[in-house]
């Protein structure tokens, strides 16, 4: 208890000190405001920035792209991952393609994706999908391969069919792997939304960051980045909570 308090004291103290030094350096002119604005200025700008009507449009655009892309990644990634993990034959057939696509930086596919689907909502959705698809497939395949063999033998001796075994044994024991994959997909998807919008779009947080950054509206840019960081933290926190909740029923695991 004491240790935890001491730890918090140091962390919070360092955070406060860092912010104060930053604030002081800007106020005394050591750092030019046009270069790096003071934290107080960023916070002050963030309020009206996010309350504005124009902002809602950007938030909706980014949110839609992120959610559609992630939903598609889950919808495609889960069955494909389970199939690959379950069938060594399918795994052998698809492995070269997955390895090749896995090695290519998905964000570098943007120019091709734009040639294929055009600039707009869908070009970003496709990149988010690609970024989220691989961690989910790979983690689910691993999950299926590492199902407790005893459980599978039990299912078999109770005459459960293949589909029934997958549904009642494999899927429930894959949940932690799925959530770990989803976590990575969320991180990758956030980057994909931002980069996709920075590269070519007319709306969204990434578009805002690109425009404000390139025109040295640094205060607004940091306000946009702050919102991005917070939404990322929120998404990860939600997944961690779910992970925690889902794990409670599992016998022999206190985590």
């Amino acid at each position: 208890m004491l240790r935890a308090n001491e730890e918090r004291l140091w962390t919070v103290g360092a955070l406060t000190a860092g912010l104060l030094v930053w604030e002081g350096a800007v106020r005394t002119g050591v750092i030019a405001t046009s270069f790096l604005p003071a934290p107080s200025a960023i916070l002050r700008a963030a309020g009206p920035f996010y309350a504005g009507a124009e902002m809602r449009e950007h938030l909706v655009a980014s949110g839609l792209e992120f959610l559609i892309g992630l939903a598609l990644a889950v919808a495609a990634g889960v069955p494909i991952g389970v199939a690959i993990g379950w069938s060594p034959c399918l795994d052998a057939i698809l492995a070269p393609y997955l390895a090749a696509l896995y090695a290519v930086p998905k964000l570098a596919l943007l120019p091709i994706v734009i040639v294929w689907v055009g600039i707009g909502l869908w070009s970003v959705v496709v990149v988010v999908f690609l970024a989220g698809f691989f961690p989910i497939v790979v983690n689910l395949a691993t999950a299926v391969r590492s199902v407790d063999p005893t459980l599978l033998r039990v299912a078999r001796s109770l005459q459960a069919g293949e589909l029934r075994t997958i549904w009642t044994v494999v899927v429930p024991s894959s949940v932690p792997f799925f959530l770990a994959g989803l976590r990575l997909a969320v991180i990758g998807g956030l980057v994909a939304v931002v980069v996709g919008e920075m590269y070519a779009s007319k709306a969204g947080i990434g578009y805002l960051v690109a425009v404000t950054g390139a025109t040295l509206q640094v205060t607004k840019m940091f306000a946009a980045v702050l919102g991005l960081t917070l939404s990322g933290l929120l998404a990860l926190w939600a997944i961690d909570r779910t992970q925690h909740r889902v794990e409670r029923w599992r016998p022999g695991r206190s985590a």
Partner: protein
Amino acid sequence: MGPIAGVTRAPDPVPRGVAVLDGRAAGPPSRERHWARVGLGAGSVLAGLFLWEAIGTLGLINRIVLSPPRDVAAAAVQLVRSGELAMHVGVSLHELVVGLTLAVAVGLPMGVLAGWFRRVAWVLRPLTGAFYATPIIVFAPLMVAWLGIGFWDKAILVFLEGFFQVFVTVSAGVRALDDAWLRVASAFAARPAFTFRTVVLPGAVPYILVGVRLATGRGLVTVVVAELLASTAGLGWMVAYYGQTFKIANVFVVLLVTAGLGVLADAGIRRLEGHVEQWRATV
């Protein structure tokens, strides 16, 4: 493929090759099984290439939208012969290497300090937390505004991306040092500087390599994406330029080269990690 790094909370996977269901691998995969796998993989790649070529040749999909393998091969020959590819690879690698060097130069000492002194770790936590939650690439436009389009905006982005990786893995590595070794050192009345040089640093080497490997992978992506957004040369520039001029075959070549570089760097550092592990086993 094993689980991707980051699968930390999942239950321990059963070792590979353990009997899972009748008819599936029992014990380490047999030789026939291995060759069946390789055969299936090779067959599927050949079938895929054939299909891809057929689609393009028969004109089912416009050649510009999906260049068939023959066009990609021709583009590769042309880009290599003209020396264009080598020049752009050089530009990207230069940015990557300088950024990574800076990342190690700063991340390593800070990681060691944070691993060794708890209080340093506590003090640095807000900084590492901010790095963890914010995609570094969002600073690309700002870097361009600060430093101009060129070499340093990319190198600095790689530095920021890599610094975090190196810092986190190194501090975890130092924290994971075997207490027994440290007790031996203190039993022999070793001075801190000596303990540091003979116990801490060698003990942290595998972690340093892991950090560098992760930083290299992400750094390569960062360089390419930053070049995609704003540049005058480099692999990302080629992707953007040829994408915008509808030379999709050239884009495919560049993507393959980028993926190849990533795989090569990853394999190279993994080998180095293997060497280090061998050396540890004999001590």
